[in-house]
């Protein structure tokens, strides 16, 4: 499954719940969700640990808009809008964690 998260993990528990519930597949972080992949944020250890279970992607335009494109942690793949579409097509189902 492709899990899409658009909330910062420091404000909402959407990403936490997604990681705890999901059985694997991918997580795509968009909008404020991209703050999760900024190096040095307090959620980093949790996201790093989840990388064993999920492939982690972040939407590049959202990283750039927030000035964090240059501090993306290792193991995260930045994708453009086309990459977003490819991910949706690649997985059997997708779920948005609002």
């Amino acid at each position: 499954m492709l899990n899409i998260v658009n909330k910062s993990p420091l404000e909402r528990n959407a990403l936490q719940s997604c990681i705890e519930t999901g059985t694997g597949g991918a997580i795509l972080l968009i909008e404020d969700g991209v703050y999760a992949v900024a190096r040095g944020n307090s959620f980093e250890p949790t996201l790093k640990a989840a990388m064993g279970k999920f492939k982690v992607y972040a939407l590049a335009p959202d990283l750039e808009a927030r000035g964090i494109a240059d501090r993306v942690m290792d193991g995260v793949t930045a994708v453009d809008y086309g990459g977003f579409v490819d991910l949706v097509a690649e997985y059997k189902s997708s779920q948005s964690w609002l």
Partner: protein
Amino acid sequence: MSDIKKFMFVNRKAPYGTIYALESLEVVLIAAAFEQDVSLAFMDDGVYQIKKGHQTKGIEVKGFEKTYGALEDYDVTKLYVDAESLAARGLTADDLTVPVEVMSRAELGKMMEEQDVLLSF
């Protein structure tokens, strides 16, 4: 029939504070009319949607707790609740307004993986 799809509605928000819970319930009732395989999951603050005893008169909003009771008439009987979310809010299945199946996050995750369509609210 092969054109019946598995739809799961995932509810993670408390009722009344936002419109999500009511919108979800309305979409569920509409979807049920199309005779699909519909299930509902409640986790995080979503479990508050089915907490017994809503009295909404004072906030002048239409309460919809009782409507969950009609789901059975719509043949929607698969209601799943995350055990951890209940426990974190000091609730048990006895506090809920409808009969549900309480399960772990891992079990709930497996159910999600089996769905054709997931709609989150």
